[in-house]
């Protein structure tokens, strides 16, 4: 998957530049909210519960200030990515114990037509590897700046 393909999936209405939550459950709630507001999910509770249960398998806080909560659920009919930025950072049980500041929530139906779930997950992780780009994404004040950052500045 190319970065442009990932960028095409991102939507301005699913971008939260100033997250307020201070705990893991609150972060999941805040990240799912734009999906509800945008009419992308039928049941907010179902998505949050599936995401929470996924966290029991191992935290999706991948370290270096990044978390990628994700799950497949029938509660959505298409793949969606919600991007959230927390300036203060939130303890997300990350591997390196550092607070997470950059969140990519990925939800997809059990059978997504183009089978994008795993390629998207892989591309998101790849895109945050570079420290400079990661910092630019965290500092992005708006959706346009974030897109510029994720595409390599």
């Amino acid at each position, binding site marked *: 998957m190319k970065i442009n393909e990932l960028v095409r999936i991102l939507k301005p209405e699913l971008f939260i530049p100033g997250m307020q939550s201070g705990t893991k459950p609150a972060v999941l709630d805040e990240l799912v909210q734009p999906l509800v507001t945008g009419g992308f999910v*039928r049941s907010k*509770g179902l998505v949050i519960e599936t995401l929470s249960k996924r966290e029991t*398998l191992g935290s999706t806080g991948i370290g270096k200030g990044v978390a990628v909560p994700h799950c497949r659920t*029938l509660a959505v009919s298409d793949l969606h990515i919600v991007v959230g930025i927390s300036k203060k950072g939130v303890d997300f049980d990350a591997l390196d114990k550092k607070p997470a500041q950059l969140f990519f929530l990925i939800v997809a139906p059990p059978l997504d037509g183009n089978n994008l779930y795993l390629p998207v997950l892989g591309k998101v992780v790849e895109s945050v590897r570079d420290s400079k780009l990661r910092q630019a994404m965290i500092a992005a004040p708006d959706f346009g700046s974030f897109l510029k950052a994720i595409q390599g500045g």
Partner: protein
Amino acid sequence: MTRNLIELMVLYQDLDLMLKETAEAEATMGFEMEGREKLRKAMDDIAKNISPRFLRTYQRLHTRFKRPIVPVQNDVCLGCFAKLPTSYGEKGRKDQMIYTCEQCGRILYWVE
């Protein structure tokens, strides 16, 4: 949390598929993933809130289909692509009822 029956069953299937995916991943990667037992326990807890009759339906369908619960889009079952009867329309459906496809028997879930 109060939740209608179909949502509980959808959650049950989502976790069921998640467990199967991790089992496949374990087989491929050659090491055990933590938390599978917790996930299985969570599934059992959800199962306690589903009537045994519907759990049996789920298990029976599971012997035939990988996903016993399928979404409905534009009045079409996305398991077998059969058009559903008009009586399954939004006005005719009740919250605590489980609807199945007349063609393939899969349990139906209206996402939108």
